[in-house]
């Protein structure tokens, strides 16, 4: 190791108080690094004896800034395409209402991403993650399971859809919106492309706050 042949250690030339400062810093950094890595390890490892015993300490340390998830396409990759689709109920100038057809919003994102070497997060992540946020915080009968987070997720999903439709469609004002998730399994390797059928999970109608500015919205 050439480093041993270099100039003598800088620390050797320091006074005692300075060397104490070096030793204390070295100890503190070593402990901090070891503690940090232990916490990150317990956070990313599968739930185990230690991480269950120290769950509170681990979570207090990791959240919010060191949260991480490296289960990339694991344990199994997603094997289905989920498209978020939506339709609206519009109020016509004459006073009547009309229900528009289903629009495949995810499909529009996919079309926009096609042959784009730099897809935007607005196309690749926005709807996809908003839906997983929603489905993580609601059961299949659309009941909230996570308190305020459930409400945040449904408001977020509604706002994304609202923005994409705009205030008017077919000459009428949008008053209600309904979303559904269309899930199509990816056919097994070797199976024919059309061999899987699409399942729909339909969400309730949501009233649109016509005075909404994005700043103030009833929850």
């Amino acid at each position: 190791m050439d480093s041993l042949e270099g100039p003598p250690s800088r620390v050797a030339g320091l006074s005692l108080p300075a060397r104490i400062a070096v030793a204390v810093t070295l100890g503190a950094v070593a402990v901090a690094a070891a503690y940090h890595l232990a916490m990150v390890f317990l956070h990313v490892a599968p739930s185990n004896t230690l991480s269950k015993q120290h769950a509170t300490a681990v979570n207090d340390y990791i959240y919010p800034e060191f949260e991480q998830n490296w289960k990339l396409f694991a344990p199994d990759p997603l094997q289905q395409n989920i498209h978020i689709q939506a339709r609206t109920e519009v109020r016509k100038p004459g006073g009547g209402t009309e229900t528009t057809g289903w629009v495949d919003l995810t499909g529009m994102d996919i079309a926009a991403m096609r042959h784009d070497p730099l897809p935007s997060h607005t196309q690749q992540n926005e709807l996809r993650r908003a839906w997983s946020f929603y489905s993580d915080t609601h059961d299949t009968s659309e009941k909230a399971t996570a308190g305020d987070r459930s409400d945040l997720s449904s408001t977020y999903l509604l706002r994304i859809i609202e923005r994409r439709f705009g205030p008017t469609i077919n000459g009428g004002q949008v008053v209600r919106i309904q979303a559904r998730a269309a899930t199509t399994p990816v056919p097994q390797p070797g199976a024919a492309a059309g061999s899987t059928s699409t399942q729909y999970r339909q969400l309730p109608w949501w009233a649109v706050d016509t005075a909404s500015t994005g700043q103030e919205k009833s929850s």
Partner: protein
Amino acid sequence: MSTSGSPLVGGAHLPDADRTAPATAPPAAGGAGGGTGAESVPSPFASLGAGFDRALTRGLRRVTGSAVAPYQSAIVRIGFGLTWMLFLLREFPHRQELYGPNGPWGFDLAKRLLSSNHAFSVLMWSDSRGWFELVYAVAVVSSATLMLGYRTRTSSLLFMVGVLSLQNRSIFVGDGGDNVIHIMAIYLAFTRCGQVWSLDRRLAARRAARQHDTDAAADAGSDAGSDADSVAASESGTGPGSGVRSVRDGSGVDPVGIALWAVLGAALVAASAAGKLSTGWAVIFWLCWLGQALWWAVRRYAPGEPKTLMEVLGDIVHNGAMLVIVAEVCLIYSTAGWYKIQGSRWEDGTALYYPLHLDDFTPWPALSHALAGNDVMVMLITYGTVIVQVAFPFTLFNRRVKNVLLAGMMVEHASIAIVLGLPFFSLAMIAADAVFLPTGFLRWAGQEIGRAVRPRRTPAAAVIRPRTPDPAETLTPGQASGAAAEPAAGPTPPSTAVT
């Protein structure tokens, strides 16, 4: 090879120490096998204590002696600065929708979420459009200055603030790439990542050269010795952290740095007065701010022991952060690999087929479907991915195998960038992988890139030279001389620029 090799070289000392023990064992074992029984067999652990002591001493000297892995920390800095800057520029047209106060994840929703998880985001300080634009602009500029290594210490802090503020503001638009950037931005703030390949480095070299000229003119005798030493050190490429440091280096007043420090201080006062900072963050930012002032004062007024002490302390923190970065990358691959092992699709070798049929990750459907149609290729890549991810941390004990796997992972990430349409995720992962690149390769690559860029500059320099005899140009021939180009600046670790 001490300065080459991965940052884990320090960790490799223990195996080294072990190796000395078995080496003495075979003859003794042979004697015992002969059945004479007269000679006692030396314990294979006999030299272990001494070996351990030696390794410990070497390790201590290393972590207190210099900021390790200057090239690796620089390439990680450049990689993440570049990735985040390109991402912000790409999303510039969509910035309002992703992070703005009136996007779908509105200010009100973010406020409700952040009040429960307490994530840090300066964007929550105000819902005004102007504030948002300012933060976005600072994020772009700080990622550029971090990449260039301009006032690296301050840039790395502002970079971290920008990354955390934007990502925490809208946590539901990110993906794995954002997650890597988020964590590395925090770690980078603790490193002295501007030692090489940075503007700080060049500016320090320029100052040193100017100083050298002034000294030579003013006093041909007294200082010549120390300056000659530093020039010798720089020419021999001893690089950053080498022992020779000019007493005068960087002792200029640095008005830009002082102005920047004052502006950031004012911002800090305002934020603290308005009660915007949590206690933890306030302590961190105030310590950094005071630390910069102390570092400036020490270099200017106490260039002896106080400066050396601060350098040693800074190096220790840097070395700890580099260890954490290296371990973090290992954890990323371990987690990714070990969870895959549990998946039936990864077991039967068809896992790759599925992402190639996910609409969100197939910007080039013809390419994806052609690849997915090749069953054998799908299986080989599926198995290869798991093998490489699980094996990678263990290969760190063998340079050659590590380098082969590293090249494989970088190629795979480059392919993911195109095939799965995840360019920023892939770039971030490649930047993280780069911490394991060997120093020899990095220096060679830096030199080749330098050469490739240089011919375009030469004519301009030739035109300028007759008009402005800038002292800095005396440096140019030295920098052109190849391998020693970057570390040629010798005397000053560039992260020392006062900001």
